């Protein structure tokens, strides 16, 4: 029999997606459903002094929900209990677009009319928008290895500060949920989401429901990229509160404007490196300061900061490291999960730092990378000894081999350049995360000879549904057609953990493989009665140790590596940077499905190109100025470079068939490679992205 793993089998959801049959949240027909809407704050900081419903308006046609209608805790359950479901009368407002009221009506025009008859009054306070002046700190992290000596004979010290901006996930399907009262006396929510059990927990807490009463079902989801990690909990609770009060189903579907204006973005940051190096190029110390802007509420900020800090050295071995990281509160909408989760920010700085040190020493940066790179047996900043599958040199060699010659431009105002970056990305949750979570999957052998995988891991385009079937089919030794993934419905599937952190294929996929192997063994050994169900939960390998207090130990089970080479063309008249070619060599452990793996690298790569070049959010008084798709630009097919992916297989012993998680890794490499390419083309260094025409021209002019 032909095995499935390693082959690019047709994706499971392919046929329904190319025919229009796939049903996303807003495609679902729900008889009797009313439309919901969110009324939001128009100030960045203050308190609500009055919520006035115009008595002249006929409110009998409208359902209104305020904080007083919340049966449970007025908290969106996540890490810290700071974010309310709805700001209450007399309560604090911490950012613009903060939800205050919910409305529902039978038709959209009534809803619109009702919204116009609400007045909210505030007592204003002075907001904080500048992260470098913010004083409220969400979280601090310090990582130490060896000792950073301030001044040492013969050591060159290079210091540089880098800045990265906000970025919108821009899944093409906006946020949305449909809620309806269920037979358990609770609420069922169907929505566009990455993490069914995050939403389940949040729903239980805010609506005071039992495990059984709260049911969360994932509809087909039109992209996530982290943007549907935490925010769907808010949307789901809002829809459920309206459905509870209305006693009928509610559709709460955001339009693009609301989605851009109100939902989370990538954390902006300021990162300063001080690198000590000997004249011969030996790395002596890395002293790194990281500042991230969490926005108005904490959301996932502590974990984002953690990933930023752990990746801040780049994939290099340095005897003396000090990383001081903090995330602060400002009065902007909260920042949250976005592919890479802090690592793209800190790796941008780390990789450009290699360039600056190389320039100071008058050496080729690629030689420094080769000299400094993590190799088998080396230890990271957290003291983690790398004992297997270190692909840094493999990806560097593969990318360099594939890089074509950069041609000279025929037109003199167009300058071409090339840049390179080397990055790593920890697969799975940080530290003890997987151990605490202990994600579970179930597998069923059914009487008709088919097999079903029960998992809360979601398909959001990356291919979960297909890869899990491949893994199970090969572990069972059956044709892939006999295996399917059950729908992501919390009343039916166990909690496999969230679909985040490059953990789904590697961590949950391994559980699928193990559960399938157990089913196979039991079917072979005994005459088992069908259906047969097997559950498998994650058990932390004994060799992995992590100390949360000291930030020492095995920060991740394993790291994936990537080398990116970017070619750019800079128009010296307009300042426009065009990325023409992108080569990514990626150590993925094992390519379970080469086409899907390439799809992750190409798609993530282009998101990074956008972040580095054109995706800019302009802030004014705590609001995003370009909160429409006409003004927030992402790369089109015309803007996108030719992208070439090289999959390097360097198996990881505990990954399924050797695979490592690579979902986020492609977001890390392109930005520093592009900025290095801009320098190659123009001779100027940008310390900040996006590399907009204004910044490029200003940098060239000040040279």
């Amino acid at each position: 029999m032909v095995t499935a793993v390693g082959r690019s089998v047709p994706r499971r959801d392919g046929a329904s997606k190319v025919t229009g049959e796939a049903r996303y949240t807003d495609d679902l027909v729900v008889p009797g459903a009313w439309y919901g809407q969110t009324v939001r704050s128009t100030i960045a900081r203050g308190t609500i002094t009055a919520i006035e419903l115009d008595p002249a308006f006929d409110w009998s046609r409208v359902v209104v929900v305020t904080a007083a209608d919340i049966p449970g805790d007025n908290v969106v359950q996540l890490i810290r209990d700071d974010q309310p479901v709805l700001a209450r009368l007399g309560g604090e407002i911490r950012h613009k677009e903060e939800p205050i009221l919910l409305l529902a009506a039978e038709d959209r025009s009534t809803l619109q009319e009702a919204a116009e008859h609400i007045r909210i009054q505030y007592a204003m306070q002075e907001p904080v928008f500048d992260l470098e002046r913010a004083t409220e700190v969400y979280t601090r992290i310090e990582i130490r290895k060896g000792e950073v000596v301030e001044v040492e004979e013969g050591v060159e010290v290079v210091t540089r500060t880098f800045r990265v901006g906000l970025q919108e996930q821009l899944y093409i399907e906006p946020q949305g949920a449909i809620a309806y009262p269920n037979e358990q006396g609770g609420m069922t929510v169907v929505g566009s989401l990455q993490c069914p059990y995050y939403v389940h927990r949040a729903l239980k807490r805010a609506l005071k429901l039992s495990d059984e009463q709260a049911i969360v079902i994932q509809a087909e989801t039109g992209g996530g990229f982290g943007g549907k990690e935490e925010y769907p909990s808010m949307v789901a609770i809002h829809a459920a509160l309206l459905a509870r009060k209305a006693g009928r189903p509610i559709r709460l579907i955001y339009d693009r404007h609301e989605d851009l204006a109100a939902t989370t973005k990538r954390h902006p940051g300021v990162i300063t490196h001080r690198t000590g190096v000997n004249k011969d190029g030996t790395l002596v110390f890395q002293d790194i300061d990281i500042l991230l802007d969490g926005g108005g509420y904490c959301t996932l900020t502590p974990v984002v900061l953690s990933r930023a800090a752990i990746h801040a050295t780049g994939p290099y071995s340095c005897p003396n490291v000090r990383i001081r990281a903090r995330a602060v509160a400002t009065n902007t909408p909260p920042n949250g999960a976005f592919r890479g989760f802090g690592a793209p920010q800190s790796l941008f700085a780390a990789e450009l730092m290699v360039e600056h040190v190389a320039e100071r020493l008058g050496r080729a940066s690629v030689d420094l990378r080769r000299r400094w790179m993590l190799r088998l047996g080396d230890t990271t900043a957290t003291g983690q000894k790398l004992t297997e599958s270190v692909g840094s040199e493999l990806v560097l060699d593969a990318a360099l081999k594939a890089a074509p010659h950069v041609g000279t431009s025929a037109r003199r105002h167009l300058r071409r350049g090339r840049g390179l970056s080397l990055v790593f990305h920890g697969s799975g949750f940080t530290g003890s995360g997987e151990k605490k979570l202990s994600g579970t999957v179930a597998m069923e052998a059914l009487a008709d000879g088919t097999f079903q995988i029960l998992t809360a891991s979601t398909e959001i385009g990356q291919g979960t549904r297909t890869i899990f079937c491949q893994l199970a089919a090969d572990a069972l030794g059956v044709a892939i057609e006999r295996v399917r993934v059950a729908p992501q419905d919390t009343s039916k599937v166990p909690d496999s953990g969230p679909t985040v952190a490059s953990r789904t294929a590697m961590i949950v996929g391994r559980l699928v493989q193990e559960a399938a192997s157990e089913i196979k063994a039991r079917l072979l050994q005994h005459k088992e009665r069908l259906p047969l169900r097997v559950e498998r939960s994650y058990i932390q390998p004994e060799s992995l140790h992590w100390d949360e207090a000291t930030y020492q130990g095995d920060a991740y089970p394993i790291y994936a590596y990537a080398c990116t080479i970017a070619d750019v063309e800079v128009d010296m008249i307009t300042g426009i940077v065009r990325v023409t070619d992108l080569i990514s060599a990626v150590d993925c452990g094992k390519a379970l499905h080469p086409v899907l793996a390439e799809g992750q690298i190409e798609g993530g790569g282009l998101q990074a190109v956008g972040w580095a070049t054109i995706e800019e959010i302009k802030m004014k008084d705590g609001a995003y100025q370009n909160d429409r798709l006409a003004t927030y630009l992402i790369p089109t097919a015309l803007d996108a470079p030719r992208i070439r992916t090289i999959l390097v297989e360097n198996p990881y012993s505990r990954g399924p068939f050797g695979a490592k998680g690579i979902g986020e890794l492609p977001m890390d490499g392109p930005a520093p490679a592009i900025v290095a390419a801009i320098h190659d083309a123009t001779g100027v260094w940008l310390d900040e992205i996006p590399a907009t025409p204004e910044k490029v021209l200003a940098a060239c002019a000040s040279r």
Partner: protein
Amino acid sequence: MRFTLNGRDSSVEGSGSRRLLDVLREDLRHTGTKEGCGEGECGACSVLVDGEVVNSCLVAVGQVEGRQVVTIEGLQSPLQQAFIEYGAAQCGICTPGMLLAAYVLLQRTRRPSEDDVREALAGNLCRCTGYTKIIEAVLSCAT
């Protein structure tokens, strides 16, 4: 109002100023046409009107009176299989519009270049794929 939808006569009641997108999705239950932005930027709502790609969020249903409308539900093209094989559909939300835009290109240009494909798809945003596999899939269908 009467128009032809995927080869069949279709009639809808109500104001001619309603968005074609809403009429297709809500009255006619053709939900393969998606709303990504509602202002003609993303192309997720692309449909064909008399063989031209239009953003159905910017078209009033009155404007298609007596005309031929084709949505993803009416498409039968080798492009669909190619999109599956080449990995051109990931989350799938842009796929219906992308397929229709590619279909029109291949109707007009039997052997498009890579640049032709990029140009033809420039009105359809995809956030998942980086476009590489979409372009490969379209080129594979050139005859």
